[in-house]
């Protein structure tokens, strides 16, 4: 089992450290003995066929799986910034502030563009208009959306295009100042132009955030990520620099998968 990368990438600081993780839905084990480090301010892509466990694994990082009654960690641990996130004293709300998430289908609130961004801050008790205005603008700029929506901030977010809605969701995730952004198939419902914009955004955001992305689109993984992990049947098969995974992987299964000879 591959646990560390032998990549030629510059040495980076691990922000997520996963050690021997076993995870199950009831009696069905979904992840087997997964160990890997995810590095700060890089984009890490998870690839693999449907059911390989990549989304389950992604959702372990902000304990989204807690919402599924039968889901449970059987063994191993996940540390973020050195803290075991499954310990009973960990505040899950606080964890999710630090580990934001963007889903496959954009899910803006049925509110104005402005209120979508300000929502997270308001529930934290921040009401001052100047602060909210500033954060809304910052987040929309970071999500490369400001120029497109600055004149219609009070319009409903539901009137935006699919690509704009997805970038709004990214902007909304940024509002609570996370350090890590999880993206679960963020472009699967978008057209090529909107996909390109989100990919450009990911490239920009990695200057300030650590990004973990699950994608079925191997070309997307190749384009946007620094490191790629290939999963199959709940096991981490290979994890390395994206260049290595796509140009000269070490494992035959990885080679077969990335070259389309799988199955």
């Amino acid at each position: 089992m591959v646990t560390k990368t032998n990549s030629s990438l510059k040495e980076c600081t691990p922000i997520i450290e996963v050690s021997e993780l076993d995870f199950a839905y009831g009696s069905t084990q979904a992840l087997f003995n997964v160990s890997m480090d995810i590095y700060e301010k890089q984009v890490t892509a998870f690839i693999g066929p449907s059911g390989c466990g990549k989304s389950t694994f992604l959702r372990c990082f902000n304990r989204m799986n807690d919402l599924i009654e039968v889901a449970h960690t059987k063994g191993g641990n996940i540390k973020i910034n050195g803290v075991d996130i499954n310990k009973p004293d960990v505040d899950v709300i606080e964890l999710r502030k630090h580990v934001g998430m963007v889903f496959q289908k954009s899910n803006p609130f049925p509110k104005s563009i402005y209120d979508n961004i300000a929502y997270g801050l308001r529930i934290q008790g921040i009401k001052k208009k100047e602060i909210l205005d500033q954060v809304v603008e910052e987040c929309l700029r970071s999500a490369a959306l400001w120029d497109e929506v600055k004149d219609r901030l009070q319009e409903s977010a539901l009137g935006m295009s699919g690509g704009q809605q997805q970038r709004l969701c990214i902007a909304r995730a940024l509002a609570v100042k996370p350090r890590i952004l999880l993206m679960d198939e963020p472009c699967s419902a978008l057209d090529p132009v909107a996909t390109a914009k989100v990919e450009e955004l990911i490239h920009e955001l990695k200057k300030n955030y650590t990004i973990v992305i699950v994608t079925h689109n191997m070309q997307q993984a190749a384009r946007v990520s620094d490191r790629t992990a290939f999963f199959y049947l709940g096991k981490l098969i290979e994890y390395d620099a994206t260049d290595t995974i796509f140009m000269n992987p070490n494992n035959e299964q990885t080679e077969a998968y990335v070259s389309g000879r799988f199955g």
Partner: protein
Amino acid sequence: MQRYFHEELEQIRSKLIRMSEKAREVGQLALEGFVECDLKKAERALVMDDEIDALEVEIDRDAVRYITLRGPVSSDVRLILVAIKASHDIERVGDEAHSIAKRTSSILRREGKVFQPVAIAEMGEIAFSMLGDAITAFIEGDLELARSIVHRDSEVNRLNRENYKTLSSELDGDLDNELGEASTQIKIIFISKSIERIADHAKNLAEEVIYLQTGDYYNS
């Protein structure tokens, strides 16, 4: 929309231009070494080939990476294909230049000067102007200039045939006389052939520019 990875394509293009300029510089230096009987120039040209070889490897590696990770299409994939083919042509120009320099050096070390009965300088002038124009056509995307290069190759071929005829007839006489002179004639035949090959590679480069610009293979 310009994507962040298009910069990588621009880097490949820049490396190809740098490699071409380097090959032209080495080739011209080698030719000057021969024409001016300048051993120093010939020997300088001998050691300049390594950078060209290294750039070819780099371009190949970058091109494979770009194809694998970026999924280029249309003019982008044509540029990658041209980079791979052109870098091979340019590397061969470097090799021919090295060969000219090596033979010139050998002649000059033994004889101190080169007796030049044939049109090497004239051939070189045409071949290197073809190469220079091919580089310009690539940089500026000048289709007309690229097309004009293709036909200039025939004059270089004609001169090479004449050189061969002259030198080989002299060679028949020399073989009866002195082995050293015969060796020089043979070396000059090879130098003439190297220049003719440089013109061939310049023509290939021009055809690659035409393919890059139009997507069609040039049929001369």
